[in-house]
């Protein structure tokens, strides 16, 4: 009767390790798939951005401002959609750091887009450029909530004014060119919004863009 079955401790440990390993592998696979998908998107966005930069160069030789506007808005919208996906994957990604690297890459792309758009609006002045600077992974809930509301507010604005370029860039990603731009426009705190490279605002109520009826 009643013989002891203590081997179950080892068996349970092996099953637990197995379940964890399978879980980890599935998790890492899903996160890697998400990374690969976004990486492909980012490569396409990079190509699109290069095309935009090339167009700016060409505009020096009286190239069409209309084409440049369309190209920049299309690029910004595409990157914006990808940013939403990136954020979603970042929320669910717990095991690997690869998505974070991709986030930095996107911030670099958007910084380049900011520079490119700055040249375009200087020349053409036929659309609005809204750069939203936020903090990546803020520590306090206050800042997190404030940034969330800024994102919503700007998204609403973008939906109402499709003829504008919205570039959300995380300001604390250690990108030197971005730091220089932030200094150049005298940004005092994050989150903040720079409108047409002319005005820096920190409060929701100040989000009035006079030239929003540009075509």
């Amino acid at each position, binding site marked *: 009767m009643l013989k*002891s*079955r203590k081997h*179950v401790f080892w068996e349970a440990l092996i099953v637990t390790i197995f379940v964890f390993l399978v879980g980890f592998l599935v998790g890492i696979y899903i996160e890697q798939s998400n990374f690969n998908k976004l990486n492909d998107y980012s490569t396409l966005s990079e190509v699109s951005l290069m095309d935009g930069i090339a167009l700016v160069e060409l505009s020096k030789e009286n190239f069409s401002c209309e084409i440049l506007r369309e190209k920049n808005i299309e690029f910004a919208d595409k990157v914006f959609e990808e940013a939403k996906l990136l954020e979603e994957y970042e929320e669910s990604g717990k095991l690997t750091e690869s998505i974070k690297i991709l986030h930095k890459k996107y911030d670099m792309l958007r910084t380049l887009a900011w520079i490119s758009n700055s040249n375009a609006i200087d020349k053409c002045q036929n659309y609005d450029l809204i750069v939203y600077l936020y903090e990546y992974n803020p520590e306090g809930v206050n800042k997190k909530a*404030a940034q969330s509301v800024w994102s919503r507010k700007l998204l609403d604005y973008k939906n109402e004014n499709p003829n504008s370029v919205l570039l959300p860039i995380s300001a604390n990603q250690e990108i030197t060119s971005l730091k220089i731009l932030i200094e150049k426009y005298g940004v005092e705190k994050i989150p903040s919004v720079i409108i047409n490279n002319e005005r820096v605002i920190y409060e929701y109520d100040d989000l009035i863009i006079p030239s929003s009826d540009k075509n």
Partner: protein
Amino acid sequence: MQWLTVLYLVYTFIAFYFLFIYVLTYIQNRKEIYEIIKPKKIFSLSIVVPCYNEGKSIGKNIEALLASEYPGLEKIIIVDDCSTDNSFDIIKAYAKKYPKIMVVQTPTNTGRAAGAKNYGAKFVKTELIGFSDADSFPEKNAISNMVGFFNDNEMGAVTSRVLVENRKNMLSKIQSIEYKIIAFTRKLLGFLDSIYVTNGPLSIYRKKAFDDVGGFDYKNLTEDIEITWHFVAKGWKVQMAVLANIYSIVPEKFNEWWRQRIRWNIGGVQTVAKYSKKILKCGMLGKFILPFFVLSWFLGLAGLFLLVYRAINYFITKFLIAKYSIAANISILRFEEISLNPSILFLFGLLLFSLGFVFTIIALAYSREREYDRTKIRDIFIYSIFYLLMYPPLLIISFYKYIKREEKW
């Protein structure tokens, strides 16, 4: 990896490990759960019942014990702990009627069940000594189904399966589920020589083993846990007879239930503190029971911390977003922000909960009972989601009271 993720992974790993211990033990031993061992001889037995102001239930308890089919039950010793109600009169009336019943009274109120139990044990001269609570009622075959385990000379204690007598309101119905799960898991732990408590409602000890451990620890609020650990520490075996059913009255009011659980938890803390130096020593006590107890606390506290931390963060963030959204004149609710991309941690949690839920259903399905209705799925959900959430706060308060030395019965 964030520290919160690491904590969550450690939490789920331990929880999965314990769950798989139960699941594998169940799979490997399911045919023996209801095993009844026929006694090789008639072991003489005395049952001690401590009684303090139990006028409402002591009569029923005595009658249930008298109805026992076990032929070796020689004495039923009722220990009146200086009751202030009519308990003593009731006991005396039974003692007059039935010679098997012996009534004794403590010189002064001992204040704890352990005091009355130890006092009653002095009058026991049989091979086995059993203890029963005055508010508990064993089935007539309960004792018969327990004594066979004493065929093994190393068997020090055999405990029964406690079920709920009064299933009148939601709280008592939920406790009925809890008691069945406890009984099922305790039986499984028996296959691993790791039973950590021989319950108060009905447990039988070999008198030699009882004397070997020096009886119950009077200072401990859960003397039934402490004595079990003591048995295991001394090398005595402990088993459980699943078919030894005893029906016990459980608290129907929340405050009574709360007080009872605080007492149980403080007793648990006292026991762990007393035996903490036995870690990794004394067979299964140090190698499994003690770490199991402590890690169960960790699971409870870590689970509560994770839940509260996430909930507070979530609600504060949502509140601030709503506040700022009003200030910014934008809509508060956004459907596009709902993410349908769950993390692997969420899937781990879901798997753990699902397995735990299935295990609960199996445990309840295995709980063969007399005429009671089947447990409702609604009650199982309430037990699994809300009732179990009460364990960690109870533990925290118990720790506090233990540190403050507020160890009242």
